Structures are given as structure tokens and as C-alpha cells.
């Protein structure tokens, strides 16, 4: 926990946010994650790509315990994820997540979506929680929609609310699971812009995405996964210019036209 308390210094960049060592996971007989080793530093931005079914979503869902790994070690912000519910709670409090399908709560207003967890988990007062929510809604540029319900918003707006909702918990790490895949093309940019800003402010981010422009612009490292394994990890320039593995080359040739 002293990681979180220390003042931000350049040295902090070397501290570990997420460590995955020898992680395996099975869905029944299906081996989804095979010996995953990945260390993410604080303030690092990782983009994970790969063909569908390669285990990228499962990988980031393991980090906040939505999926449980069966072998190996996952340490999030100094807390190892175990079967113990308290370790999960501790990890989830530091990790925000944004989903492909937004998953906003349809029975709550935008503002209530953002205040629910701060009130019930952090114990904030309603007024404090609303102030914080408005702050983040302004940052994602939709404060004027705060009294609407999710169904009244466009996909891009909903996804920005989802980002604000996660930020209201002041997470130290943000996970994005294909945040723009369910959006119409003209809405992708507004969401990516918010994510780029977030990256520039130094948020630790793990992004599952096929937005290669985004990866080029903000990623510190790009992870390529196939068949449950991490095939290649490299800086974006190297990754796109000189992919080392055949599978990476094939994948890139398919998505970059």
C-alpha cells in the first residue's frame, strides 16, 4: 500500500502495478491462458491485441478477479489475488474497468451511475460523491447529461459515462476491454480522445483494442496474443515496423490495410 501513498517521482515509474507470473486458466477443458508472464509498471500504457478468442479479454478480466486464474500468481498493486474475498475487494478498489458493452446501470441516472460505488464502497456523502462525479463527467465532456438515463445517450456518450463512473473510484489502474468495438465509427474518436487524455495524465492502463492508431499514439508497449499465449511484446514502433513472429505479421496484415 505504501506504493499508493508515496509521492509521484520519476522513480515511481519503475514500481510494479500488475504482475502476472506463470498464469494459467481453463474454461472447462479449454485452455484459455497458457503461462502468461506480464509485468506492468506504474503509469505504463499497454495495448493488448490479437485475434478473437486469443484470451486477451480473459487476461485483463483476471486482473480484477472477474475471472479466476487456476495456476500462477497475479499481484495487483502489491496485493496478490487469492481465493480470499478480501484480496479481491482490495484489488477491485484500485482497478477500474470499462467494458465493450458499457454496462451502465439502466435504472440509474448518469449521475447515480457515477455516485453508486463512491457512496456504498468508499462511504462518501451524497454531496461529495456528486461533486466528484460532476468533476469526472466534465472531464469526459458530458456534464450536461448527468440527469439523463443511459438509454437516452448515444453509444459514445454511454462509454464516456462508463469511463467517468470508473474514475469516480479514483482507481490506480484502468482496464479497457475493447472499449470502442461496440461503437459506431463516428463515435470512436470521442472515446479515444478521452482515453488519450487519461493516458497523458499518467494513468496506468491496460487496453484490449484493435485501434492501432491509438496503440501507436499512446502505448508504451503492445502485447500480441494468440491461442492463449503472449506471442510478442514490443514498443509500438518496433511492433508495427518489424514484427518478429509470423503470427504477428499475419495478424497485422489482416487488420492494417
Amino acid at each position, binding site marked *: 500500500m505504501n506504493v499508493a501513498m508515496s509521492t509521484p517521482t520519476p522513480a515511481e515509474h519503475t514500481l510494479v502495478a500488475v504482475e502476472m507470473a506463470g498464469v494459467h486458466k481453463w474454461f472447462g477443458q479449454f485452455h484459455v491462458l497458457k503461462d502468461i508472464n506480464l509485468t506492468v509498471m506504474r503509469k505504463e500504457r499497454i495495448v493488448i491485441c490479437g485475434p478473437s478468442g486469443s484470451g486477451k479479454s480473459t487476461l485483463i478480466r483476471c486482473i*480484477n*478477479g*472477474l475471472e479466476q486464474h487456476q495456476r500462477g500468481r497475479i499481484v495487483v498493486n502489491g496485493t496478490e489475488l487469492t481465493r480470499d474475498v478480501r484480496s479481491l*475487494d482490495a484489488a*477491485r*478498489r484500485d*482497478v*477500474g*474497468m470499462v*467494458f465493450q*458493452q458499457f*454496462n*451502465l*446501470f*439502466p*435504472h440509474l*441516472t448518469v449521475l447515480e451511475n457515477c455516485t*453508486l*460505488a463512491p*457512496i*456504498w*464502497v468508499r*462511504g*462518501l*456523502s*451524497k*454531496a*461529495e460523491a456528486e461533486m466528484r462525479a460532476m468533476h469526472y463527467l466534465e472531464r469526459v465532456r458530458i456534464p450536461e447529461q448527468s440527469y*439523463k*438515463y443511459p*438509454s*437516452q445517450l448515444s453509444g459514445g456518450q454511454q462509454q464516456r459515462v*462508463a469511463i467517468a*463512473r*470508473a474514475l469516480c*473510484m479514483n482507481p490506480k489502474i484502468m*482496464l479497457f476491454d475493447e472499449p470502442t468495438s461496440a461503437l459506431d465509427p463516428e463515435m470512436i474518436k470521442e472515446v479515444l480522445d478521452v482515453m488519450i487524455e487519461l493516458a497523458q495524465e499518467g494513468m496506468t492502463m491496460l487496453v484490449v483494442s484493435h485501434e492501432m492508431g491509438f496503440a501507436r499514439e499512446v502505448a508504451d508497449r503492445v502485447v500480441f496474443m494468440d491461442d492463449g499465449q503472449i506471442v510478442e511484446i514490443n514498443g509500438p514502433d518496433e511492433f508495427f515496423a518489424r514484427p518478429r513472429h509470423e503470427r504477428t505479421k499475419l495478424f497485422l496484415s489482416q487488420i492494417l490495410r
Partner: protein
Amino acid sequence: MKRPAAESKAAAPPRRGGSLAADPRFRAFVVQAILLIAIVWIGWTLFENIRQNLAAQKIASGFGFFGETAGFGISQTLIPYTEESTYGRAFFVGLVNTLIVSALAIVFATILGFAVGIARLSRNVLLARLAEAYVEVLRNLPLLFQILFWYLAVLGTLPGPRQSTPLLGAVYLTNRGIIFPKIGLEPGSGIVFGALGIGFLLALILRFLQRRQMLMGSERRSFGWLTLLLIVGLPALAFVLTGAPVSLKWPELRGFNFVGGARLNPELLALLFALSTYTASFIAEIVRAGVLAVPRGQTEAAFSLGLSRRTTLRRVVAPQAMRLIVPPLTSQYLNITKNSSLAAAIGYPDFFYVFAGTTLNQTGQAIEIIAITMAVYLAISLATAIFMNWYNRAIALKGA
């Protein structure tokens, strides 16, 4: 491709050979005219048939029978009734009996149904399997069978009044029903009820303050004990201070039966058990379906925000599940009311048995009584539906 009406009108009448039979409008007119004549004829025949039959049997129609003496006894009367009372009185005795068994069955079926439905979703395999077995057994056996089962095979096999041994000193389970001490209210008991009311009020205020405090974010303290003290302690104190203003009338065995105590008839119990447990199996499925229909992403989003399982269920899943649960739940409530008329099979004096049964037999006023019976069940069902629809609107998704 449908053409707009005006266009088709203009384009339609290229009559072949001027034949009226080929004109769709003319044909439609003829068909409708024939239908109208048929309906009028059927209605008139029914009316005339009834009039002639009533005249032939010398039955005067009308509602005068309501004021006549009923002359039959009813085994469960929650409002004063004797054999000398009128049919009108009997009507209300039956109605109250139907309403009481329906209301109680609705409450019990809802509690049991929600419990079983949630148990079926439990991660505890044993509990989930038990709940599943409950649902499959109860919903697949005819309700009439279940009523008779409770009446004959369970309650009917209890010992007679003379053989029964009391539970907790004074509750007798017998084949004549459950007999227990009757609580009589003496002067001063009003103060105890007043204290109970004040206790509830204070507890509500406390809850409101606590909620506000939570919203203000100040320190959260549990007021569970204080609430309990207010609701239980305050009336208890009043009870002691006023010198226990109640009298217990203990049941005593005289001859072959008990006198003095209060009694729940086996007919009421059997009907209530059967209706509640049977309907609960359907409600359990409705609840399970409602909870499962809330997308998995909702729970995942709640978990990833750090909400506990409990808070997720209460604040995220339940509000969304209730919207799916309420409309089919309303149907089950209506079924309970209507199914309560199976009371006739075991002689529970419900509305149908008393009114459409005995009263109809004795007065012969079939038309009036059947019409009133239909109107009464319709009224109860509509009232239930109106209330549930109001509730459904109150919890409906806003802004959708």
C-alpha cells in the same frame, strides 16, 4: 407493398361486368350485416329462452332474495352470522373468507416463492437442488390433489381433540384444526398498542436520520439494537406498566371438543398451505427468471466498481429483476384468488361455495347469482391488477 388507402380506393373499382359480388366493399358490407343479424338473433333467442323457462318454472327474477333468511350454517364466520341471518349476510361471510385466504396465501406464496427462487440460484449445490426438487414436485401436481393431500393426508391424520398433547403448553394440533389460547383485550390495552405505534414511528424517524447521515457521509453507526428496543421494548414496558391488560382464554377439553380457545379450521389451513406452496413454485420460477434475465454485465460492472455481493444484489440486480418479475407475479396473484374457489372440495366456506353453491341451490336464482359471482371475482381480480400495475409503473425504467 401496401398502397395507401386513398390510392387503392381510386384504383380499385375496375368492375368486371358490373358484378356487385366482385366489389370487395359490397362483399364486406354483406358479411358484416349477416354477422350483426346473427348476433342479434342469438342474443334475442337466449333472452327469450330464459324468460320462457323462468316463467315455466314460476321463478321470479330479481335480487329480493338477498334480504331473505339464509337458514344454513357456515363453519367459519369472521363477521357475525347465524342461521337466521340473510343471504346478503352469507354473501359477505363468503366474500370475507375468500379474501382472507387469498390475502394470506398471496403473502406466504410471495415469501416462500422468493426464498425458493433465490435458493435455486444459490452457489450451494445442495440448496439449489432442493429448491429445484420443490419446484418440480409442487408445480407438476394438480392443485386439487394438493388441497386434498393437505386436508386428508396431513391434517386429517392428526389426533382427535381427546388424544392430542399440547405443544408449548397450550397449542393443540388436532384433526379439528389448530387450537390455541384466545387473547382477550382488557381496558388499558390501547396504551400498549399506542406504545407499539410510537415505537414504530420513532424507529422510522431513526432510520430516516440514519439514511441522511449516510448520505452526509458522517460516521455510520448501526442502530439495529436501538430499533429493536423501540419496537419491542417500548410496548413491553407499557404492557408491564399497565398491568398486563390482556386475558388469555385457555382452551379446555369438554366432551369431544375444545371450548374457550381460538381455532384455525383444518379447511382453512389445508387450503392456505396448498395454495401458498403450489403458487410459490411458480413464483420461484418467475423470480429465478427475473434475476437471470439481468445481464451478466451488470453484476460484472458492479463487482469491478468494488461493490459487495450484497450491495450488488440490492442496488443493481434486484431493481432490474423486479421489473421483469412484477407482471407475471400479478398473474399468479390473480390465480390464487381464482384457485381459492377449489375450497368447495374440502368444504371451506369461501365465496364460491357459500354463494354460487349453497345460496344458488336454495334460492334457484341462477342467473342473478352467476352474474354476481362473475362480477365479484372480476372485481377482486381487477383491483389486484390495478394495484400491481400501479406498483409496476412505480418501479418502471425511467427515461427509456
